[in-house]
């Protein structure tokens, strides 16, 4: 019994019933395409989240002015500016802390020549760029000297640079922020979306001191909007959080039993949650898609059962002229497998083009890996063998006499 010849027989049988074969295959195509598409969307979401996390910087805390109570009235977080530059400096001296970046923000109108653009202006110290692991693409970030002298210097994000300058090189040029001239010292590298979906490249950075004294002003001089704190290591994060809490409670003279007037947020924990959520979503998409693969498999079993019954006489004839049970089993199993493999190939192609279309239409990141394609293909074949086996065995178990007599 030669396998190649039996594959030929299987292909012949499938060709004889083109419409039926095609429709059965369609179930497989849709199933495999769905799996590939869903996996690629899930993987894309994971990649997006991972990139956002990586762009945030590592071992990060964000310390914000917290919910305060004045008398019986509780106010929302950030409504009172309780954090000061002094707090930031104190936190920076903690042993478990690597760097601290105090931050003030505001929105302002920027001008360069005839172009103008409104964006978030962030006042930071040079440490901010280290904490965020953010380097320049062109030029330099401002220096500690600029910070001390409250110099009018600015570093531009990619999107802002493009909007103000177009194709021109911004470094060394002067823009106006709220009509004051600022020298552009550099343009930052692209960073992409943050975890909360903001475009981080649509921003400009000026020295903290310059911001406080010349751009925003403040009701309470020396206060900051929030600070980013970088821990020394991933292992020391919990310890660092306790230290920050203790230090700030002490500095803010909070007696035992009162609430914190600040909030310490561990971004690593947040990142873990986001990663976990993306993973779960990815798994769920895959699970939903595999249901359609299962339905496709049941379709194959259904058609193969009909086919076996219809071809009972053919099976009888083949047995009479010398086909043994294994030859019959192999032929019908191969028919199911061929449907699955061809359907799997078409499904992979459809899934990849679908993923491409989704990434184009919805501006989503999709990731297709070879492993994913292999997985879908493997499952398609497994479904074929699993659901093809029962009908094939039914065909092979027929008694030649009865099969021949079948009308």
């Amino acid at each position: 019994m030669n396998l190649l010849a039996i594959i030929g027989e299987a292909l012949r049988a499938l060709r004889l019933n083109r419409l039926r074969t095609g429709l059965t295959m369609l179930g497989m195509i849709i199933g495999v395409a769905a799996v590939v598409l869903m996996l690629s969307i899930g993987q894309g979401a994971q990649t997006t989240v991972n990139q956002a996390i990586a762009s945030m910087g590592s071992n990060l805390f964000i310390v914000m002015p917290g919910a305060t109570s004045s008398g019986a009235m509780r106010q929302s977080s950030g409504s009172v500016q309780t954090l000061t530059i002094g707090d930031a400096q104190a936190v920076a001296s903690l042993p478990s802390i690597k760097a601290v970046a105090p931050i003030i923000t505001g929105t302002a109108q920027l001008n360069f020549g005839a172009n103008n653009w409104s964006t978030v202006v962030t006042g930071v110290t040079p440490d901010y760029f280290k904490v965020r692991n953010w380097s320049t693409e062109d030029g330099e970030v401002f220096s500690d000297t600029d910070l001390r002298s409250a110099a009018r210097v600015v570093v531009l994000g990619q999107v802002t640079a493009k909007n103000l300058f177009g194709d021109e090189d911004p470094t060394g040029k002067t823009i106006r922020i709220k009509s004051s001239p600022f020298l552009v010292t550099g343009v930052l590298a692209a960073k992409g979306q943050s975890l909360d979906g903001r475009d981080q490249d649509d921003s400009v950075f000026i020295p903290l001191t310059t911001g406080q004294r010349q751009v925003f002003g403040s009701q309470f001089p020396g206060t900051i909007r929030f600070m980013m704190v970088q821990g020394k290591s991933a292992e020391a994060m919990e310890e660092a959080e306790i230290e920050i809490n203790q230090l700030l409670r002490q500095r803010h003279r909070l007696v035992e039993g009162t609430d914190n007037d600040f909030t310490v947020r561990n971004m690593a924990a947040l990142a873990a949650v986001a990663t976990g959520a993306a993973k779960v979503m990815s798994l769920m998409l895959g699970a939903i898609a595999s249901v359609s693969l299962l339905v496709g498999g049941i379709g194959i079993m259904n058609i193969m059962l009909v086919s076996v019954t219809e071809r009972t006489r053919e099976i009888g004839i083949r047995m009479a002229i010398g086909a043994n049970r294994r030859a019959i089993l192999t032929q019908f199993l191969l028919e199911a497998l061929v449907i699955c493999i061809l359907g799997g190939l078409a499904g992979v192609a459809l899934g990849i083009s679908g993923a491409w279309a989704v990434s184009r239409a919805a501006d989503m990141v999709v990731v297709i890996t070879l492993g994913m394609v292999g997985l879908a293909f493997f499952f398609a074949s497994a479904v074929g063998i699993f659901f093809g086996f029962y009908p094939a065995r039914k065909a092979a178990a027929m008694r030649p006499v009865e099969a021949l007599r079948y009308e």
Partner: protein
Amino acid sequence: MASVQIDSSTESLIRVENLCKTYSLDSGINGTVNSQVLYDVNLNINRGEFVAIMGHSGSGKSTLMNLLGCLDTPSSGHYWLAGRDVAALPENELARVRNHTIGFVFQGFNLLKRMTALDNVATPLLYAGVSRAESRRRALELLRQTGLGNFAAYQPNQLSGGQQQRVAISRALINNPQLILADEPTGNLDTQTSGEIMAVFERLNREQGITIVLVTHENDIAAYAHRLVRLKDGRVIHDGGVTA
């Protein structure tokens, strides 16, 4: 193939002893009902014989044919085919016997639909493990011998009944069987075509010494054989001359 090799010194090709066949029918509320179709059939057919088996419907002749063709297994008794006890062989071995030793010709031709005459004739060799090219060469040779060389690429429904039966005979012959079992081979054919088909059997028997066992209910068809076995109610009631 050593196990199928035939000891050609044995004169007897088919030897049947006390062959019985009982069918169990599940009749629902009454449980199973046994219905015996063959009772202690004894039969010896030598190599080169041309035997006709006759009997009314229900006489058990088709059952006997199926047993002789290894399409079914007896309930009890012995069956030696070419010196080998085949009554209790497992299905895979039976498939091999059918493939190597026996050629079948059926009343309804039983060709595979939508497959060319050539492929139909070649199919048994697929299961014998012969290469495709060799199978097709031998199939074409056989079709030429039966006068169908020009019809090799035709499908069964494009051929006349007589041509289809010739294709079926070619298929039966492709693996050089020692025995041809023909179950009412002319049942679906007109008188003239029947004569032509029977002439083919006669020639195969005379020129190649192939043993032929033929089931029929027509006396003039049985007349082509050299020996007649008549069955009634599952028993052999005549075994001898054709004119009986």
